[in-house]
């Protein structure tokens, strides 16, 4: 057992009375007061999350774009400077090593943010793919803290944080899946309009040493606007409602992108890329669907999806009683024959069969 890791914001979480949980070897706040209240705050106002456990890699060099086209599933060379893009790191056999967001900081300068639990696997894969490219990939995870501010009030709150200066693009003009430069008390701050909640919001990348002062300033600016600190429990129900996959649940080494509905992320007509020729799922491979049920009893990860006779059709990967919608929702891998929207199935909830319906993802979409 390795020592649990803590982010630079540990003392803040403890002072706020957070309960902690293990997440990929990190001790992270699971909730501060109530996970439902935190969930609703993000949907209705705003929430602030410490996601400093996530891993960051810089990719720099004359061949950086070509290297990423080879190393990742997408065509990152086609992305303009200032943009961000969701992508996948595939294994040679087409399985998913991680899902990542790539930010193009300059022509030859990219930032990759990956999941905390996959940091070592991502680093290994990225470093193993540099042969023949003029590129330098560096794991800079320990240098940075990452703070997410999510919810309809996020933009307004951040504009009022004294100490954030020199914003390179006016707040209102910053686009979703794009980033802007700024400073935090004179030091570099990256503002990315990305998130994992289904709401508008930002992810703030700042030097680890400056995390506490930025956290305090955002909390204080947001207090009067309904901003609350949010833990991983609400982050999970928020992303589930938004139909966003979580690595280890909807994505893993055995799953090919198209099975998880991520076929569009893979650009197959690239000259070459890792996983090429292996990305097509086997005939009849299970596919990811949304499920909704009535009542209040949720199907959970690992529970079977069955037909009226009790024969297994698939397995739930994530499930909860949706705080926003008020009924149970789940994502599950099921046999393609049961994947069509509207298909009636049952969830085996500890021996009780709960009727459920295959539903389009996401379950929740914010009003624009």
């Amino acid at each position, binding site marked *: 057992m390795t020592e649990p890791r803590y982010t630079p914001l540990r003392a803040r979480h403890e002072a706020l009375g957070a309960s902690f949980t293990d997440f990929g070897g990190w001790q992270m706040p699971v909730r501060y007061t109530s996970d439902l209240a935190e969930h609703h705050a993000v949907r209705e106002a705003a929430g602030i999350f410490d996601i400093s456990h996530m891993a960051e890699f810089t990719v720099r060099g004359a061949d950086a774009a070509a290297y990423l086209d080879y190393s990742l599933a997408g065509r990152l060379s086609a992305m303009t400077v200032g943009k961000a893009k969701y992508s996948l790191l595939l294994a040679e056999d087409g399985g998913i090593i991680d899902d990542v967001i790539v930010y193009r900081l300059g022509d030859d300068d990219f930032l990759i943010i990956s999941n905390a639990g996959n940091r070592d696997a991502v680093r290994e894969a990225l470093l193993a793919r540099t042969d023949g490219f003029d590129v330098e990939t560096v794991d800079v995870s320990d240098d940075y803290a990452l703070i997410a501010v999510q919810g309809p009030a996020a933009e307004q709150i951040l504009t009022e944080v004294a100490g954030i200066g020199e914003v390179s693009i006016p707040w209102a003009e910053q686009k979703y899946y794009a980033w802007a430069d700024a400073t935090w008390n004179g030091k570099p701050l990256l503002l990315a309009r990305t998130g994992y909640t289904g709401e508008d919001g930002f992810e703030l990348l700042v030097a680890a040493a400056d995390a506490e002062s930025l956290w305090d300033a955002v909390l204080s600016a947001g207090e009067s606007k309904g901003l609350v600190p949010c833990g991983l429990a609400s982050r999970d129900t928020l992303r589930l409602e938004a139909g966003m996959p979580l690595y280890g649940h909807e994505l893993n080494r055995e799953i090919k992108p198209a099975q998880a509905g991520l076929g569009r992320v893979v650009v197959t007509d690239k000259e070459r890329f890792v996983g090429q020729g292996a990305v097509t799922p086997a005939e009849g491979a299970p596919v990811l669907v949304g499920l909704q049920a009535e009542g209040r009893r949720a199907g959970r990860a690992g529970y079977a999806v069955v037909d009226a006779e009790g024969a297994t059709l698939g397995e739930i990967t994530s499930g909860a*009683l949706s705080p926003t919608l008020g009924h149970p929702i789940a994502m599950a891998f099921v046999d393609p024959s049961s994947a069509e929207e509207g298909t009636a199935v049952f969830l085996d909830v500890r021996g009780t069969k709960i009727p459920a319906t295959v539903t389009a993802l996401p379950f929740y979409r914010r009003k624009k």
Partner: protein
Amino acid sequence: MTDLTTLKYSEEHEWVALEGSVATVGITDYAADALGDIVFVELPAVGTELSSGDVFGEAESTKSVSELYAPVAGTVVEVNQAIVDDPSLVNSSPFEDAWMIKVEVADGALDGLLDRDGYTAITEG
């Protein structure tokens, strides 16, 4: 406010209050906090016979499911429909409004349960 020192406790984080031959059972604030916001509670039917340690119901939070274990043996004589209708009571009032079941018990049914000091030794240990 309930005087918590008058209650008995199980290692599974249920509390028991005895009045005559009827034991009232709920879960502790520690258990409610550990579960997170409770969103679903299932309770047994009145008349159910329970042995000590039997699963008598379930409490679900957004994150997890927890089975409820009978800390005493006996017959269920009343269940608290209020917490089925509003499971958040388990978080807001675990020792009062969110009692779960009342069980008709025999003499000595509470033998072997922990007192407050014994229980806090578990939760703070």
